[in-house]
């Protein structure tokens, strides 16, 4: 089962390796990990999507809480979160194919951010499912390179994690 975990941590040296090391040691596989500072520059927010059963998820939550640098841990339920990931794809695009690709981008809410005589680079920010769909749609043209950020998530409604 996939779990999305938000962790607020003190922005100390080594904190990322403490968090990721903990996952490895407890046999919890990380699907994606994204990290960035929050409104308070002394605090970072780490979003981790990981796979494991309920018991392991509980363990991980407790172990994360135990880390000295951890301010707050929240395991987000699938129905209470808004999740986004950023993906950039460099795809083969001969002049004849450009308008087709542009149409796909328009429908998928993606943006063309670079272009050469033979390629286009598009950017999409959406859920993991939509990112996969975008990938599938462009695959036929020949994807040259693809890069994804990993999921970040926030709770729906007015509740916050702080």
């Amino acid at each position, binding site marked *: 089962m996939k779990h999305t975990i938000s962790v607020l*941590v*003190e922005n100390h*040296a*080594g904190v990322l*390796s*403490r968090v990721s*090391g903990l996952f490895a*040691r407890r046999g919890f596989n990380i699907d994606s990990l994204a990290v960035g500072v929050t409104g308070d520059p002394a605090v970072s927010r780490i979003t981790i999507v990981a796979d494991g059963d309920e018991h392991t998820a*509980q*363990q991980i939550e*407790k*172990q994360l*809480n*135990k880390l*000295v*640098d*951890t*301010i707050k841990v929240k395991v987000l339920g699938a129905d209470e979160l808004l999740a986004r990931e950023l993906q950039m794809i460099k795809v083969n695009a001969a002049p004849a194919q450009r308008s087709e690709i542009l149409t796909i981008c328009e429908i998928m809410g993606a943006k063309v951010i670079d272009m050469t005589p033979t390629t286009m680079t598009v950017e999409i920010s959406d859920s993991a499912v939509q990112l996969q769909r975008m990938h599938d749609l462009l695959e036929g043209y020949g994807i040259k390179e693809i890069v994804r950020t990993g999921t970040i998530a926030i709770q729906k409604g007015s509740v916050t994690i702080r």
Partner: protein
Amino acid sequence: MIRAAQAMVKCLEKEGVKVVFGYPGAAICPFYDEIYASGIHHVLVRHEANAGHAASGYARMTNSPAVCIATSGPGATNLLTAIATAYADSVPLICITGQVSTDQIGCDVFQEVDITGAAEPFVKYSYLVKEASDLPRIMKEAFHLAGTGRKGPVLIDVPVDVQNTMIDFEYPDEIRMRTYKPTVKGNPLQISRIREACINAEKPLICAGGGVFLSDACSELRAFVEKANIPVVSTMMGLSIFPTDHRLYLGMLGSHGVKSANHAVRDCDTLIMIGARVGDRAILSPSFLAENKQIIHIDIDPAEIGKNIPVDIPLVGDCRSILTELAQGDYPENAHSAWIDEVMQSKGIRPKRDDAEGFIDPKAFIRMVSDRLPDNTVCVADVGQNQIWCCNNFAFRSGSRFLTTGGMGTMGYSVPCAVGAKMADPSREVLAVCGDGSFQMQMMELATIVQENIPVKIIVMKNTKLGMVRELQSKGYGDRQIAVDIGTYPDLVMLAQSYGIKAERVSDMSEAEEKIERLVSSDEAFLLECSVYERETTL
């Protein structure tokens, strides 16, 4: 302005540190130079791991963080085993290592190793100090972290140039860590639920672990147990909380425990674990246990609760405060008496043993030694058969203390730990018991004993084998013995004497009394080599 290295020493003094254990090298020289000028007593061990183990013995006797020191690179890596050992047993240590100069970090220069990285899985916290002015705050935090909540080792890695930087020194009065606030007081609702469960249970049982020592709650536990009239088993780390002959005490549980304890665990209807982490050597199949009984778990570390066993009533907090509150309940007198009679029936029954000529009976011998030693003796057991012989045969009395490495089972722990324990409390008799294998992992510490004039007593159970592994091979691998024969050498009596330490050998029970008398009455360090039959059984 003072040198940061001097500030470090001042921090130690502010924390009341009188003794440190260590081994020097280039990268830690500025700090040593300031120890030279201070009133702190430095104990030069003969291997860095033993600095950690000695500090562990010291910390466990004083129940506050103790300090060990090593240089960068190999000094620091030598210390790793002791750090991991302390972590597994929640022993509060401050480990200070030298590091190469900040401008050289990452360049793979001479004696550079990423020690905070290497130790990361088994420290409570670690610091690589980049700013000298941070040192006072870091030292203050380190002592706080090591010695509160679930205790443990904290590593401070200090580059040599940082040690030499001039700073304004002021030791902070308070800790400002918004993230670290261990729960001490137990939830009152859960406490009253536990009180009720203790009263309503027909067959309650308490399992006491090392956390009871860590929270200094031995007398609180005893008061509660006696009031609620509940029988008690102990984990290895909880040995000596209860005197062996206490009317409610059953002995050690687990794969190397005694029948009376294990049967009680099997048959109870309510199991109350206090400061115990349900390790696999204590409770082999926890989920099976949890099926037919109510499980109550009291621990300072929320992550331990529910980790290895499903729990019906969890309670997070400090054992001492919780036990004080638990003892305040109204409990019926003479409760559970049928159950107590039932479990006590098998207490003290020992398996039969065949006499082996030319050898001592290690179990009977341990009993004799413990009967002869003062009540408040500290017994440190190493790892292997010798450890289990101690666990199940040393007669703990009120005021005695048992030390061993329960979590890691680190061979070579006993002698350096005994050194630290004796330094912490010179008024008490301290006995280290080890095997001939484990002794050879720590025998360099005989030199420390002599140099520091530390009158510890050492018993080596010499069975010429790595006995516990030999037994594994005999039972599980068709007696195909490989890499367990360690020979009859060295002559430990001669070896000890070459250091100037008194030593004797005993190879027959008829001489036991006399030899034990000499060991106990010696006011100097004393080593006793005991000839033990190579096929002697653990249990």
